């Protein structure tokens, strides 16, 4: 250790060791070249050589090795320079969530003007896709105040198209195809979802993932980061060609399979937590009556397990826990007269928070509803203004 200490306190030796690092050496040499064009030429040439050097040689680190191994100059450390720009570009935009959750690994295999295919067997028809306005950074609320912004999709909302369905039989093939095409045309016109899965299990990209789709306007969900209000910007929308009323048993196995591989791909691409893959009924709210379940698609029977997801019907309903929303008998019926475990969990959480804040439950609920009204007013008047307020609670805009 004394030997190590003497090295640490000797500036010239430190400099020498520092220069044994290949990147530092390149930097040192480059600084001695006065002409910027020549310097750039040198750096580009040597960086190409560095990336062609075997990894174990690039990764040698002298500082750790010298005190202990007189003959060896370097130890293995991670290379500071990526092997090539191309390697990085594939992952550099992926936003890693705060959780340690394991995410599926899916990559694109082939892409052309008409379709994309993926390593898990997913095929996305892209010919019919449309653009919309780009996704805006969306505020994430903690205690009714914006605590920050997200920019990459934070979750997936599953919908049903509620469109007319024909019997799923071979002789109805043309009719099935025609109905699928009709619903695709409709949702393209309204930019309703990012993806639609037709009854044959074909996956169509409707709206570009980087653009907003109008699939979940008045809606709320929350995760460990905070609450999301109006999920159009923050969540991707995936619709099954299906009907809720007496029709969910008509979901085809091909649709379930397609939804599974699509969900895997999206979770892989954006590091979306399983807890943020939810149904429209779970997130939809009526902002005027403070009731949950304004839309009731997938209010029951969503095949979470078949899609490789946690049963999110058990997750506390965010609109109830965070903003004091309530459910009514109509929604209970939509749930198949069986309350989700998440409703009870949300009610418990609400009681706990009212106790923790020393406020009676009805009053606490009213305070939470006030918080939502404030956010809703900001969003309704100007989404950009709402975003501004988030980082700027005093309202200072300049």
């Amino acid at each position, binding site marked *: 250790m004394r030997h190590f200490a003497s090295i640490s306190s000797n500036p010239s030796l430190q400099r020498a060791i520092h220069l044994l690092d290949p*990147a*530092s050496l*390149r*930097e040192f040499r*480059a*600084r001695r070249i006065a002409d*910027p*064009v*020549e*310097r*750039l*030429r040198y*750096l*580009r040439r040597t*960086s190409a050589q560095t990336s062609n050097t075997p990894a174990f040689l690039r990764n040698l680190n002298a500082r750790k090795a010298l005190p202990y191994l007189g003959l060896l100059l370097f130890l293995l450390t991670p290379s*500071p*320079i*990526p092997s090539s*720009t191309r390697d*990085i*570009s594939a*992952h*550099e*935009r*992926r*936003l*890693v969530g705060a959780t340690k959750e394991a995410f599926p690994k899916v990559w*694109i295999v082939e*892409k052309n003007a008409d379709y*994309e295919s993926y390593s898990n067997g997913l095929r996305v028809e892209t010919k019919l896709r449309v653009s919309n306005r*780009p*996704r*805006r*950074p969306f505020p994430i609320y903690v205690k009714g105040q914006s605590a920050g*912004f*997200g*920019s*990459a*999709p934070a979750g997936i909302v599953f919908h049903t198209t509620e469109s007319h369905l024909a019997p799923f039989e071979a002789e109805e093939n043309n009719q099935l195809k025609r109905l699928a095409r009709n619903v695709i045309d409709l949702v393209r016109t309204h930019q309703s979802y990012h993806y639609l899965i037709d009854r044959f299990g074909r996956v169509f990209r409707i709206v*570009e*993932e*980087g653009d907003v789709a109008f699939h979940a306007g008045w809606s709320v969900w929350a995760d460990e980061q905070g609450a999301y209000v109006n999920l159009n910007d923050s969540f991707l929308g995936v619709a099954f060609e299906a009907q809720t009323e007496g029709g969910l048993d008509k979901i085809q196995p091909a649709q379930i399979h397609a939804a599974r591989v699509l969900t895997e791909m999206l979770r892989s691409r954006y590091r979306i937590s399983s807890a943020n893959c939810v149904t429209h009924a779970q997130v939809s709210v009526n902002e005027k009556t403070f009731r949950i379940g304004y839309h009731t698609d997938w209010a029951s029977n969503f095949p979470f397990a078949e899609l490789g997801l946690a049963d999110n019907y058990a997750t506390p309903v965010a609109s109830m826990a965070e903003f004091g929303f309530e459910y009514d008998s109509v929604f209970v019926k939509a749930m198949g007269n069986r309350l989700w475990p998440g409703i009870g969990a949300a009610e418990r959480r609400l009681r706990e928070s009212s106790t923790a804040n020393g406020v009676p439950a009805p009053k606490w609920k009213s305070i939470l509803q006030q918080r939502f009204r404030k956010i809703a007013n900001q969003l309704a008047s100007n989404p*950009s*203004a709402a*975003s*501004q307020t988030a*980082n700027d609670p005093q309202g200072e*805009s*300049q």
Partner: protein
Amino acid sequence: MNKSAQAIGLDVGTSRIVRAQQNGSDFEFESQLNAFVAIPYSKLTASVLAKEGVPHTVQGSEILVHGNESEKFADLLNAETRRTMTCGVLDAKEPESLPQMRSILTSLLGEGKGRKLVFTVPAAPIGHEENSTYHEATLKQIFSGMGFDAKSINEGLAVVYGEMEETNFTGIGISCGGGLCNICLSYLAVPVVSFSIAKAGDYIDASASQVTGERANRIRIAKEEAFHFNGFFADKTQQVISVYYDDMIRSLVAALRDTFTSTRNMPKLSRPIPLVLSGGTTLPQGFHDRFEKILNESHFPIALSEIRMASNPLHSTAKGALVAALSE
């Protein structure tokens, strides 16, 4: 002729195309608006345009005036200019995109004669798949048809090459143009992270146009000629522009923070690095201060030695492309 000395750097932006060339020890720049406008054909108009030297092409019953002159005609005729590009890449929906792009490039560059040319291409916007393959391949085809030995460079990296020789081309280069803001973190001239966001000058123009009812073209002129960040606006248009400018800057900062926070394979930076802002959208007075204020509030994950404007925000990308061409 020394082909290296005659190398060209070209910033192919949604709004403008800027050419950089070396003249002795200096750099020389020339730019053309990357736009055109259609005016009704008449023999008289065609002959007047030819006489005045206004670059144009006759297309059936229309005359298409391209480049810098297009804006004057658009204003005169109360029409919107059309663009060959949208969101940083060739506009596949614009039927005149390729012929007009070729015309503008020909006016700006002349014949290639085997000269080296490095042109800028955008990085993929966050949330989108790589979408510049067609754009890049098509431009390469046009340049090689004109006789150039053409290569591409990422736009953000070009800012680094144009502005950061002092730090051995290590730092963050940002180019805010018409269609996109392009960002690149470079380490010793190697691009480590590059991406773009689809919010830039055009987003401000289009959004402000919707609110005020003014044409986007007029908003752009108002923005470029008179807008500055001063915190108080008597004029409604200026007020609206300030709101959307702010929105754009916040989006840019959020994207920077999120991407750099989540990127693996980041080099171990031994000292703080500079961040340089360039591009036409950064020109309003006060942009730098507003950006710096919002960035400072954002818990930015990388230590910065300075945040500064490019020495010439309109030309630094083209200059970087030229430096890359010269170093080939």
